[in-house]
């Protein structure tokens, strides 16, 4: 997978598009960790992405850090935010979704506050032209994608992943299986946040000029969630399929003929919810394929 994205730029010259694919493949897998395996739908997932982007940018702007250590800080920023938000894990279902959504938008408002212009540039956006290095950033993004995929493969095949799924199915019974529900849940939450934070950092690095609403854009959350659901959660292949098909359609016709795109998108999603609520993967499994 990662190898493909390493080689694709040789035959396809729109690196930004490929980069966006890498971003969404990673984010969809991040959603997969916390929603697919653990059962928490994080509507404010973009908050971690934005936190990572700003964590990276602040390091570069104020401390003139090298992009790689700044990237670590991006991950740490998202982790810190996730730790702050752990009490939200007490909520379930729609309440959790809405609470994370609110948290991400609150963070957006804080970052874009004009009074913080000296720190975050407020609403005027960030420019990191000093570290602009798209080829390097692209490769780092691929590494993060590879690590994320490895994590999901691990979840698919480990007792930890099984424990998360047990928690998703029935938290009380999970306790009776000896699983420390709170701890494992928080671990999944942090893991999922870390992935988004690192990707947010690389995103800031790659595009190097952006505004708060770029990296806190709710549609990032929605895309990542829809891609993961469309493909099928708690699997490795599902979110990949989701991104390939839906983000593929989006880029093929979404920008040139948005009216058809929205029509097709809507129809696809309705069809999926009606006939394949467990995603594309469930269709493949029905055909007898063993999908990881």
């Amino acid at each position, binding site marked *: 997978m990662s190898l493909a994205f390493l080689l694709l730029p040789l035959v396809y010259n729109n690196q930004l598009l490929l980069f966006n694919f890498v971003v969404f493949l990673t984010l969809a897998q991040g959603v997969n960790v916390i929603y697919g395996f653990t059962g928490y739908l994080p509507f404010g997932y973009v908050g971690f992405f934005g936190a990572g982007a700003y964590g990276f940018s602040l390091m570069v702007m104020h401390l003139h850090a090298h992009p790689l250590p700044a990237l670590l800080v991006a991950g740490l920023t998202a982790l810190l935010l996730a730790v702050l938000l752990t009490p939200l894990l007490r909520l379930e279902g729609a309440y959790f979704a809405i609470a994370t959504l609110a948290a991400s938008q609150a963070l957006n408002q804080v970052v874009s506050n004009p009074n913080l212009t000296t720190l975050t540039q407020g609403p005027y956006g960030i420019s990191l032209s000093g570290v602009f290095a798209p080829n390097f950033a692209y490769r780092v993004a691929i590494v993060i994608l590879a690590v994320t995929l490895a994590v999901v493969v691990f979840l698919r095949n480990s007792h930890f992943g099984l424990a998360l799924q047990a928690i998703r*199915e029935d938290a009380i019974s999970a306790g009776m299986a*000896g699983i420390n529900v709170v701890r494992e849940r928080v671990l999944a939450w942090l893991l999922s946040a870390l992935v988004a934070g690192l990707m947010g950092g690389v995103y800031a690095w790659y595009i190097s000029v952006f505004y708060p609403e770029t990296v806190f854009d709710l549609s990032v959350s929605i895309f990542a969630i829809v891609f993961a659901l469309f493909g099928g959660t708690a699997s490795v292949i599902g979110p990949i399929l989701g991104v390939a098909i839906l983000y593929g359609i989006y880029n093929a016709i979404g920008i040139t003929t948005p009216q058809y795109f929205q029509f097709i998108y809507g129809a696809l999603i309705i069809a999926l919810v009606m006939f394949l609520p467990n995603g594309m993967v469930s269709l493949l499994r029905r055909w007898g394929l063993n999908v990881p």
Partner: protein
Amino acid sequence: MSLNAQPKPLLRVDKLVKRFGGFCALDGVSFHLVSGEVLGLVGPNGSGKTTCINVISGLSRPNAGQVWLEERPVAGLPSHRLVHLGINRTFQVPKPFLSLTVRQNVEVAVAYGLRGQQRWDVDNLLAMFDLAAFHSRRAAELNSVQQKMLDFARAMATGPRILLLDELAAGLNPEELQRVARRLRELADSGIALVVVEHLMGFIGEVTDRVIVLNAGREIFDGKLDAAVHDRQVVDVFLGGSDGV
């Protein structure tokens, strides 16, 4: 209240109180349990049987009172800690991990339920509860009796010393009842202490060594089932009687 000299109790429930708002589900219930004993917990609906099990297994915290596991106070510990200390349970309405396979249901309990002890073999456990043939099915595809057995297998996978069984026998056919009764006696003979909550008195009579009768969150009888049916208070509670006896 038991007359013969008992070995040291494994579990001691001491004046447990659990209130839900103004309703007092447990009103100072006390009893004890020794290794290898099968204790029946009986009483009319709402007498606090399930609440009692919920408190012992860590699903809810008591408002007062204590649960002692040997010398250790354990009331209010989270479930997984109690599981690691050797207390496990089944549920009245079975609660398996529905989308996981039967094998995974047990596997996860084997992986997380034991701390450095000898591990159960998943296949043995499945065979023991007649689930081996369904090992690759999702738990959601099992019927409710099989799901109960899966709950039971999951509890056994964690190597319990004390097992709390909440209405395990309800819904079983006579042949299954026989088999379960035999299994419970075997487990007791191997040293596990069992608390059996049940409405089927025939089943209670067959498997238990002793019964506690609960009424309105208090124990009103402790002894053999045969003696319980001659106890005035017990008869009044079950069949209705004049107030104040």
